[in-house]
């Protein structure tokens, strides 16, 4: 619990609290209630829905649960009164743990239980038969509960729905799923109160509308602005040119951990986590207790670590975002962020975890992993101090989630299409859903939605005598329930050493691996063998050093504001307080090429010989953030194709775009002409690997293909279904299929909107500086090792190969 002793105003609710057991317990601890927690109680008393925002984790969860606690005396056993929805499994257990303390110590009349994908079958059954008073669960498990036949009965006594970490879930597919189920819940239990807990939101109005349909609702802000102290790690070591590893500063990191009782090191990817953890242990002469935490750890181990952390038994924990949310991890006094923070709101939440019990400023140290990241860290520092949080992009409700939901509804009980449509429209992401799209999705759920109605006789859901849709085969219900967790897991895949599962790794890391490529994972250098239905299989490599640098696939792109700040830094570097090595790097860039200008666009071109292959590079320092750069990259790739420059692929980071091609581009201005920039883009998009990635997700989430076939034994003669093959066939024979529409919408969401890019192009018009260089420039070096590649359609690559007759093509085998 995060509470302190302080003063608050007198009010009515105070009496209610004062007489309650919890108040005595608070007093015993030396705590008192925050103003905003009292305000929250008042609003609930007036029957309002509330949104509580707080810049850090302080007391939000308790604020959400207070109404429940105060009413608990009236609660009857085996009745569900409160459901607490939290995005992460580990968070759910944390909440239970924290609640169990006052429940036991105050002897409160409350039962609490957690339900996630990890919950045992036995516990799950018990939860259904004998509901706890408070159920802590994830959006997916909530959707699952709503799909049971007795859902109405189960939720009939519900008084409170609490949504935790709203900022994390809003405008995502998980948010869509949650929102749809809340709409259904509103139907079953019209009179319950909703409480949403969130980090500071820029757009509060949308935040509120997202979960609440009540006219009476209120936003309550926690004004507890914690003082923050953010610095960039001081080290005499050379910051690397490229890559994403913090190992160069490992001694400095270790020394900082040593100085603090307990700290958390946040990294962005599993691969970074592995390397860092290993490196720390190598120099752990003081025998500190250092643990590692991530979402795909074996459940027992994960809970053990969380337990230890909570009780202050660990000195340091290395974690990915699996740990960043939550109410209480004991007394953390230092946060170390490895790699430039990609999201300011998130970063502030992370930092807020340190020193939250005492009146010391929350301390954080940023560790840049390459020279460019140093600049990003400086920009992030500024943004953190100015509380400059990013806008969250509003997105329409995904159609693949809708398909999954419609079937889930049918699993629970037969539905009337008109009524279902009306209900769906009450959910915020789907408020503008039109009837024809709904009908197409419905048809898809029925029988795949093909124009010639091929599977009509096999409809998964059928109209019964009353004219309502019901599931035609009970076995399908079982399968649906097994697959419902796919939304979260879709971008992590399993890594197997022989038959032993080592863990999970980000999918985009694997996509470009061929046999023979080596990388660091699970504490050793592994060699990639192959990709199969289960995941990827690897073997132990004989090499000491991995060939492929493990990398960051930043989900959160840098905001435009932050990008601007970085350019300012670059242009003013001489006047800025930066390490000498950074200044020298920028000076070299100035000498060899020029510094990216604050107005206009710098484009560098050079040729490189890589393993006997010539590659012509084009680097555009746009500083528009990864989303925009990705869009620009796709368009530029298409233009180069049309100009017969034979482009191969590109990578986009937050600050630049790198394209390589067979033929050198001499007229770079043409590529960034704003006139007709997006002409033919829609068609072009269809052929990109970006859209195929989205289709894969859409295919699984909508139920077209499954990740888990119940009882299906996989042999080495893989009978897997390649979603790319399905995509090609759909494009050829059913261009208007609803899943293709859904995929395109998802892809467009990923890319920045046209207007922003058009405005950018206008701004740089006549202001493009082209530097044709003989060698790689200092500023481009970090870009060249980027691994997240967007390539042209395979057919285009094959065309190039077929033209060059004497190209030596090689495959790695043993």
């Amino acid at each position, binding site marked *: 619990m995060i509470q302190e002793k302080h003063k608050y105003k007198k009010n009515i609710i105070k009496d209610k609290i004062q007489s309650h057991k919890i108040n005595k317990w608070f007093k015993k601890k030396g705590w008192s209630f925050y103003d905003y927690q009292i305000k929250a109680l008042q609003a609930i008393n007036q029957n309002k829905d509330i949104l509580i925002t707080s810049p850090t984790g302080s007391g939000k969860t308790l604020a959400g649960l207070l109404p429940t606690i105060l009413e608990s005396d009236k609660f009857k056993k085996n009745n569900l009164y409160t459901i607490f929805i939290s995005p992460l499994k580990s968070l759910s257990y944390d909440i239970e743990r924290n609640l169990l303390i006052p429940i036991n110590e105050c002897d409160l009349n409350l039962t609490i239980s957690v339900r996630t994908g990890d919950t045992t079958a036995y516990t799950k059954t018990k939860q259904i038969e004998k509901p706890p008073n408070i159920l802590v669960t994830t959006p997916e498990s909530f959707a699952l509960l709503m799909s049971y036949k007795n859902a109405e009965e189960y939720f009939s006594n519900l008084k409170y729905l609490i949504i935790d970490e709203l900022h994390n879930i809003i405008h995502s597919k998980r948010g869509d799923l949650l929102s749809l189920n809340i709409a259904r819940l509103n139907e079953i239990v019209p009179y319950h109160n909703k409480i949403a807990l969130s980090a500071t939101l820029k757009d509060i109005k949308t935040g509120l509308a997202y979960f609440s349909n009540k006219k009476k609702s209120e936003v309550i802000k926690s004004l507890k602005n914690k003082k923050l102290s953010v610095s960039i790690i001081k080290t005499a070591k050379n910051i690397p040119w490229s890559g994403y590893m913090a190992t160069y500063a490992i001694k400095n990191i270790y020394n900082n951990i040593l100085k603090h009782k307990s700290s958390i090191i946040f990294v962005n990817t599993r691969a970074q986590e592995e390397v860092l953890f290993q490196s720390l242990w190598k120099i752990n002469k003081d025998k500190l207790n250092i643990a590692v935490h991530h979402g795909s750890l074996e459940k027992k181990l994960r809970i053990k670590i969380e337990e230890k952390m909570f009780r202050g038994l660990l000195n340091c924990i290395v974690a990915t975002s699996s740990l960043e949310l939550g109410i209480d991890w004991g007394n953390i006094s230092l946060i170390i962020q490895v790699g430039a923070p990609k999201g300011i709101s998130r970063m502030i939440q992370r930092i807020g975890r340190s020193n939250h019990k005492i009146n010391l400023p929350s301390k954080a140290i940023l560790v840049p992993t390459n020279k460019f990241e140093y600049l990003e860290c400086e920009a992030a520092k500024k943004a953190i101090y100015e509380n400059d949080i990013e806008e969250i992009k509003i997105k329409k409700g995904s159609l693949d989630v809708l398909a999954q939901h419609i079937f889930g509804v049918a699993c629970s009980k037969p539905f009337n299409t008109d009524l279902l449509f009306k209900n769906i429209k009450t959910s915020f992401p789907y408020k503008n859903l039109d009837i024809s799209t709904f009908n197409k999705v419905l048809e898809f759920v029925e*029988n*795949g939605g*093909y124009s010639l109605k*091929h*599977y009509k006789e*096999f409809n*998964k859901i059928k109209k019964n005598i009353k004219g309502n849709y019901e599931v035609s085969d009970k*076995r399908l219900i079982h*399968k649906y329930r097994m697959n419902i967790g796919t939304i979260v897991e879709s971008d992590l895949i399993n890594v197997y050493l022989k038959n032993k599962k080592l863990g999970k790794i980000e999918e985009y890391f694997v*996509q*470009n*691996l*061929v*046999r*023979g490529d080596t990388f660091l994972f699970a504490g050793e250098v592994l060699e990639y*063998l*192959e*990709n199969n239905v289960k995941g990827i299989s690897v073997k132990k490599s004989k090499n000491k050093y991995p060939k492929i640098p493990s990398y960051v696939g930043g989900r959160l792109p840098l905001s435009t504001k932050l990008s601007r700040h970085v350019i300012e830094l670059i242009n003013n570097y001489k006047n800025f307080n930066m390490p000498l090595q950074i200044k020298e790097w920028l000076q070299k860039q100035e000498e060899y090429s020029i510094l990216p200008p604050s107005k206009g666009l710098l484009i560098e071109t050079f040729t490189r010989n*890589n393993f006997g*292959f010539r*590659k012509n590079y084009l680097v555009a320092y746009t500083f528009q953030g990864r989303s925009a750069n990705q869009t620009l990259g796709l368009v530029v790739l298409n233009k180069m194709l049309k100009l017969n420059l034979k482009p*191969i*692929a590109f990578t986009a980071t937050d600050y630049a775009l790198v394209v*390589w091609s067979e033929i050198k581009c001499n007229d770079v201005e043409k590529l960034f002409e704003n006139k007709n920039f997006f002409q033919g883009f829609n068609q072009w998009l269809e052929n990109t690997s970006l859209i195929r990635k989205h289709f894969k997700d859409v295919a699984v989430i909508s*139920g*077209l*293909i*499954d990740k888990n*076939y119940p009882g299906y034994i996989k042999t*080495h*003669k*893989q*009978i*897997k*279904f*390649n979603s790319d*093959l*399905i995509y090609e*066939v*759909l494009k*050829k*024979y*059913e261009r208007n*299929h609803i899943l293709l529409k859904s995929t395109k919408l998802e892809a467009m969401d990923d890319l920045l909107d046209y207007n922003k890019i058009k405005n950018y192009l206008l701004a740089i018009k006549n202001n493009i500086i082209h530097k044709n260089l003989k060698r790689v420039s200092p500023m481009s070096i970090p870009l060249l090792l980027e691994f997240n*590649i967007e*390539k042209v359609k*395979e*057919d285009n*690559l*094959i065309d*190039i*190969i*077929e033209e060059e007759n004497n190209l*030596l*093509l*090689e*495959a*790695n*085998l*043993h």
Partner: protein
Amino acid sequence: MLIQFGNNQFLLNPDGSMYWLEEKSLIVGDLHLEKSTSYIDQGNFLPPYDTIDTLERLLNKIKELLPNRIIFLGDVFHDNSAFDRLKKKEKQLFKDILNKNVIWVKGNHDNNFKYVDIKTYTSYKLKNFIFSHISDKKNKLEISAHYHPKVTFKFKGTKISKPCFLIDKEKIILPAYGTYTGGLNISSDIYKNVFLNGYQIYALGNTKVLKIEKKF
């Protein structure tokens, strides 16, 4: 791509079929027709166009080369009841193909299927060549399929995976021809049991067949 095998000439086609010049025979393997509709029971309704797509490609090749004979190397259908699921147009196209001189070697997926009076074989010998579905060590000069071989290679930093022919002095394995067929990467140990002393790899390009070198 023209190759020599057992002193005969074979044309490797980028669609995955192979043409035997001396005998004017078109050879294809693993069509897996109606694979799309084989998942209905499980509630997966895949786009049901793999059959028409596969048959049209095959017919195009037949029109182009005008073979005297067509040799199927098994797994023509994805399962034994697939034929009944064919749509009218597809049935017609299929019958058109069967009206030519067809040698049908049975596969493991369609080993119980019989079509009217078309004779099916477990393996077929023509001249000195043996045509089978799954490769058998004891056969010299054998042409088979079944494994759906595919090769992965890198081109200027990008990864490409393509179905491929695997060829040595005594054995040829054809890639899978069907639209929805996936592949088993040649890095798998399975192939070691077939090719004891290495093999040549020919990947399917757009208009050509590409030779891929092995790197050990």
